[in-house]
């Protein structure tokens, strides 16, 4: 849109990846004079807002400077040799697939930092028990941001693995130190599961690298796996696929997710659902589809089957949690709904068609925006009422948010209907395109099988609608007189943190071409590879 010279673009991308790391190191140092603020806590939280803000601005400028006429070509590329012994190169670049994810990550992290800052300001007036120091909190958030952004920006398989691993330690500590009940167990489950997946993934990546002689994703994608025999591709897809499927998470490898979400602090949940899960699906699109198409074709029906089971399983689990008397935890419910939503993303990828993959990428972004918003809302609800237990919240008739805090209730209802895929909001397009893709899958895939998957997945959307509306009924409606405790409506800072998510959800729903225009050419090129 605006013309920015290539070297500035390169610098921006490098800044986006490395900036948060420097910021994390700076967060651990004492604040310099003049920036001490009212208290050390406030200073470091403000530092977090500044750094993530700068990164967000850089990401937005990068998006503006991105050549929107050629989203299929890698832009702002840097290619420096780092470890010649392993043939690892610092190869960075963005195209239409990674750009939206970069901006989403920068945005969500900034909103999280903003939310934490104002929340601390707010709570200073009514001090509670002091938790661990926000110094480490900000440093961990920034390392996490750097790892996620790097995952989306690197074009080298081993660097991808490094970035993939980089988020583990910060997320572990975020859950284990700032989390709620059962946090230690949940944190262990999270890190051991994911590490096991990613070590297996490393074996697959090494296999690809050794057999084809390069770790460069671009070169490998152009090759379209011609260098690799089918058996190598099969093993590689299996190994890498397991690693990515744990992260995504795909049923039946999802069991770490509900625990992690339930125990994680609000900001941790937002980032976990909003961006960390996307690393898995991004890997499917960026690595497996173009580099090992033959192996992927073999496994696509199984992937689709697991995805569909995930959709149904997630919805049924949510329905069970939303029932009266089930003592369902609201955070756990949203976590299970994530399993369902990511099932749509995986189904889209498994179709191996441009339509399906575009749908998957769209659903990725939509899920990040909507689920991020929902976790923010549930976190705020917990701060106000001290509980996320649906039964405790709803009582006999319902929590009656509409009556007690109308704006809060409206926003929660908005998030719920966006999540169930109401046309006109972001959640709709991704799921619809994924279903379309399944209606006409790639040529070598069995159409009857995919038609079945499509039918089951479509039934899953109904179930999603059922539990989401149930939640709205039990939380937002009801008799305000039953539990007449006062409930603060949305504060100014909460508005500030959540409005961008709402606006983007509406924007993406009304103007899907904005995103699809970016992803579609890139997806076409990835699927065609060197043949295009």
């Amino acid at each position: 849109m605006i013309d920015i010279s290539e070297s500035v673009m390169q610098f921006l991308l490098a800044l986006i990846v490395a900036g948060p790391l420097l910021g994390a190191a700076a967060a651990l140092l004492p604040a310099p004079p003049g920036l001490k603020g009212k208290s050390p806590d406030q200073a470091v939280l403000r530092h977090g807002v500044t750094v993530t803000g700068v990164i967000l601005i850089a990401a937005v400028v990068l998006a503006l400077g991105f050549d929107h006429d050629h989203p299929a070509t890698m832009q702002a590329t840097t290619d420096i040799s780092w470890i010649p012994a392993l043939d690892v190169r610092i190869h960075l670049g963005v195209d239409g697939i990674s750009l939206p994810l970069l901006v989403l990550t920068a945005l969500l992290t900034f909103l999280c930092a903003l939310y934490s800052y104002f929340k601390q300001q707010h709570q200073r007036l009514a001090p509670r028990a002091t938790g661990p120091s926000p110094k480490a909190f900000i440093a961990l958030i920034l390392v996490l941001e750097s790892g996620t952004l790097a995952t989306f920006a690197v074009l080298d398989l081993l660097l991808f693995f490094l970035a993939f691993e980089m988020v583990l330690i910060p997320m572990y500590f975020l859950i284990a130190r700032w989390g709620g009940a059962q946090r230690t167990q949940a944190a262990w489950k999270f890190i051991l599961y994911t590490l096991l997946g990613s070590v297996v993934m490393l074996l697959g990546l090494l296999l690809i690298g050794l057999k084809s002689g390069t770790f460069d994703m671009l070169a490998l994608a152009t090759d379209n796996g011609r260098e690799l025999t089918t058996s190598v591709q099969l093993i590689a897809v299996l190994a890498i696929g397991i690693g990515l499927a744990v992260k995504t998470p795909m049923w039946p490898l999802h069991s770490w997710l509900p625990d992690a979400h339930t125990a994680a602090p609000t900001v941790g949940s937002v980032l976990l659902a909003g961006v960390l899960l996307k690393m898995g699906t991004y890997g499917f699109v960026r690595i497996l589809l173009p580099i090992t198409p033959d192996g992927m074709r073999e496994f696509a029906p199984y992937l689709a089957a697991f995805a569909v089971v995930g959709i149904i399983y997630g919805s049924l689990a949510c329905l069970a949690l939303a029932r009266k008397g089930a003592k369902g935890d609201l955070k756990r419910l949203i976590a299970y709904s994530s399993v369902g939503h990511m099932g749509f993303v995986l189904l889209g990828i498994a179709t191996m068609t441009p339509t399906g993959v575009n749908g998957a990428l769209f659903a990725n972004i939509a899920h990040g925006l909507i689920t991020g918003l929902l976790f923010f809302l549930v976190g705020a609800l917990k701060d106000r009422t001290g509980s996320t237990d649906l039964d405790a919240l709803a009582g006999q008739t319902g929590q009656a948010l509409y009556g007690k805090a109308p704006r809060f209730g409206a926003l929660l209802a908005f998030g719920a209907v966006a999540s169930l895929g109401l046309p006109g909001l972001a959640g709709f397009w991704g799921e619809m395109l994924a279903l379309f893709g399944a209606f006409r899958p790639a040529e070598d895939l069995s159409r009857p099988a995919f038609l079945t998957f499509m039918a089951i997945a479509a039934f899953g959307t109904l179930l999603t609608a059922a539990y989401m509306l149930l939640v709205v009924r039990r939380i937002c409606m009801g008799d305000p007189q039953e539990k007449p405790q006062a409930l603060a409506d949305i504060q100014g800072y909460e508005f500030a943190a959540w409005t961008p998510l709402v606006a983007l959800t509406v924007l993406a729903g009304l103007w899907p071409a904005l995103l699809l225009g970016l992803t579609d050419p890139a997806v076409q090129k990835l699927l065609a590879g060197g043949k295009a």
Partner: protein
Amino acid sequence: MNVAEGAAGVSLVQSVDWTAIAPPTIAAVVGLAVLVADLFVPENRKPLLGWISLAGLAAALASLLLLLDGDRETFCLTGDAGVCSYTADRFTVVIQLLVLGGALLTALLSVSPLKDKELPAGEYWFLLLSSAAGAALLPASRDLATLVVALEVASLPAFALVGLRRGDRRSSEAALKFFLSSVTATAVTLLGGSFVYAATGTLHLTEIAVKLTEVDGDLQTLARTGVALTLVGFAFKTAAVPFHFWVPDTYIGAPLPVAAYLSVVGKAVGFTGLILVTVVAFPSYADVWAPALAVLAALTMTAGNVAALRQQAGRAFSAVRLLAWSSVGQAGYLLVPIAAAGYVDDPADAIGATVAYALMYAAVNLGAFAVAALVARSTPENRLTDYRGLYARHPLAALALGFFLLCLAGLPPGIIGLFAKVTVFQAAVDAGLGWLAVVMALNVVIALYYYLRWTALLFRTPEGEAPVREGDVPARTASLPLPLTAAIAVTALVGIVLSGAPQMVLRFSESVLF
């Protein structure tokens, strides 16, 4: 510089290249000098001995610089100049760097315990330097006799070092255990060496490699047995299963710096010997040793990691015990590329991964021991629970230990640990040892659990206020001894620099070392 070259002619006198043998020689000579000096130095000047030893090790390290320009050989057969007993090639120089650097860091760790009169100064320094000299001689040895002599020179002082704490029953018991099992292993190695000699008629490794391919049919069994038995002594030093039982008790019984020394230099001695005999001497018998080493590697890493997992945090010395078992697990990773070397066309290529991994491991493991030594100053029992809230007391030491542990686990921010593991994985995948790679992957996950549990403990809030037990304890924690601080700083710096530029050690994994 070949001093004797001109005079030697065709006589039986071997020429000696003093530059080539400088690193072990300097260490040995300084060791002897310290032993003699100990007799004349008055009691209050004993710390002087420590500084002399440090300077000696530094000089030995510096002498490596002279060997960078190319391969040197000495103690060659007068009849055949191509067959030599001592070679200073790139492999030798890298391992000598590791061994002497490890000894230097051990020496830094030892200064304060010696000052506190826990150990006798003169003997300690002499033994440490002699052992280091043996360990430095080993990578350069190119015949079986020199190899065994070097192994013994490295080991015998180590037994004494383990049992040096006077009047400590656990220390003597540990030394005896270590001594008996080690001597048995060395005896088996000698037996194996003699079988190989009987089958081939030579002791020089390169000659053995040639002659083994043309062994008489009747002697085949003898040669095979010899090959297998020779490996035993070195496997013992590496602490590979089933020769690992001595490790935890010995590490706990030994003075802490000696445990650090054994975990790094002792292991280096073991795997260097293994590399030399397998890759240089017995390449034609790869079908014997490669599968055996692969199984050994899998068992070693699993046994070490599972045992480390089962350590109870509240038990006395649990920190050192954990490090001991984790070092057994790490030994398993070190064996993987050596096993892989048996499956690839050019074995010398694969073992580079072991060398790269060992360099990383040496730096971070010594660092972890250095922090353990720091904690042991205030809580001599060295329980894992003593590390709770270390960040509040010594923020930098806690950050350093966290970094070391994550390097050992192989997770960012320990980038060098991650990439060192990647090279090992790569060696395994390249050799087609998929099953071993999967076993190793599982082990990495197991290991993460105990490393991260320890790391998390560092940053927990201290449990209430620890009751002050003795009056002198706070005074001792207040000021950190300079050598200890230097050791932590050096290892942390090495780890951080390597994390930024992993190529510095990983280049050994792709270049030809022999």
